[in-house]
């Protein structure tokens, strides 16, 4: 059976959720890789997703999660996309009453790689809270994307949803795209989103140089400080260090 028969319609850049994706890299890739997770009411579940260089890392790496967070349950995901020509971490979340979703995401990459987070958070019931923080650091002609949609249904009063993106471009040819999409049908709702893009603070780098810190190290320290924001909600030190190391190793190799 051919790929075409299994997936009659392949995404194109005209599809909202694939706007900045390397859709050409999907050729022959099985898209139907959704992992379904159900978190029972009151339970906690957390996961660390790492796309890093390894023997079995493919040219295209997809991680697709569908998560149902029961009433009063907590879900925390910390993730990094640091390898593959095209890496996509896609998370769909449905939140019950009083549930909490915490997401910290990092993309890093150079050459002409594309690495992205695509999230859809549905506040389906009242009083749920969600917090998403994504930091993207790119160089060469690398691209980082964060497409995050937040849907608040009519009954989901007292929703508190936050989404924060910052991009750091180390070279002129690199780019980041942030596409927040808010659909809010309830009226008593707090919804915050922010997106900024910048470059390394050269004044800070000179200050560091004046104290003896060479340029590669000042870059590393500033990038570490920058992506640290995405890991603030992560209480496990080992996991935080691991994610940080994956990001900084990639940066140091500058590939």
């Amino acid at each position: 059976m051919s790929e075409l028969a299994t997936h009659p319609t392949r995404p194109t850049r005209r599809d909202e959720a694939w706007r900045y994706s390397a859709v050409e890299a999907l050729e022959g890739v099985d898209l139907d890789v959704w992992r379904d997770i159900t978190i029972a009411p009151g339970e906690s579940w957390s996961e660390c997703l790492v796309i890093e260089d390894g023997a079995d890392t493919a040219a295209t790496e997809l991680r697709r999660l569908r998560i149902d967070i029961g009433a009063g349950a907590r879900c925390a995901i910390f993730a990094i996309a640091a390898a593959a020509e095209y890496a996509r971490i896609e998370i769909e979340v449905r939140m019950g009453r009083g549930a909490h979703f915490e997401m910290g995401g990092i993309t890093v990459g150079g050459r002409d790689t594309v690495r992205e987070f695509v999230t859809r958070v549905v506040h389906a019931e009242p009083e749920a809270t969600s917090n998403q923080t994504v930091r993207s650091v790119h160089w060469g002609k690398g691209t980082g994307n964060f497409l995050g949609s937040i849907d608040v249904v009519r009954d989901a009063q007292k929703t508190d949803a936050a989404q924060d993106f910052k991009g750091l471009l180390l070279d002129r040819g690199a780019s980041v795209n942030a596409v927040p999409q808010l659909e809010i049908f309830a009226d008593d709702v707090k919804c915050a989103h922010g997106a900024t893009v910048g470059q390394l603070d050269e004044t800070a780098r000179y200050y560091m140089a004046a104290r003896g810190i060479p340029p590669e190290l000042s870059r590393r320290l500033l990038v570490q400080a920058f992506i640290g924001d995405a890991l603030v909600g992560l209480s496990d030190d080992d996991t935080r260090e691991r994610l940080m190391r994956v990001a900084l190793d990639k940066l140091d190799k500058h590939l």
Partner: protein
Amino acid sequence: MLQIENLSAEIGGTKILDGLSLSVGAGEVHAIMGPNGAGKSTLAYVLGGRPGYEVTGGSVRFDGKDLLDMEPHERAAAGMFLGFQYPVEIPGVSNVQFLREALNAQRKHRGEEPLNGGEFLKLAKEKAALLKLDMDMLKRHVNVGFSGGEKKRAEMVQMGILDPSFAVLDETDSGLDIDSLRVVGDGINAIMRQPGKGVLLITHYQRLLQVVQPDYVHILSQGRIAKTGSADLANQLEAEGYDKVMAA
């Protein structure tokens, strides 16, 4: 230990330093005074190798080496410390991390072993105490949320930890109240008033010079040293102002 000869420099094509010569021997403290815009900070940055400050003529030798040929971080490793008029904030990086990285980068450059966490903290505590800066301040991000005076004290704690052989201190006294001025001045003496060390102290006020007594005082005007004298020159400036002293 520092010989500046006929140094000229530009910022964005505008000539700021214009044939400046100055020599500082080991064990000496030289004060540089001068009106706003005279080029004092420019001199400091040129010595520190700041990008954008283009040397168009002259030479600077530091311990016999060509200073202008070194990268900024190499100058620091060679023993040069630049105290900033406006210390820079670095959100997300703690003072402790910053200074440990800086000290160990310098040590590595000189082929010395790095200090471990415990050794470093001991040193940092000692120097923070010297400048009467609360150790908790060093756990905070570099200069973020520090008052003007705290930033200047923190600069001197940095200097204490890095233990340079030569310090260029750009208006380290500005923004300090009387008590802080004393603490900072005593700190400079403790760290830098040593036989093999030299200091270039840029200041507007003679207040600091009462604590850190200079061997020479220079007036920088229009991009060069216009007058040199003993510590007395600072008193004279304080009493009579630049115009009168320069005209004399």
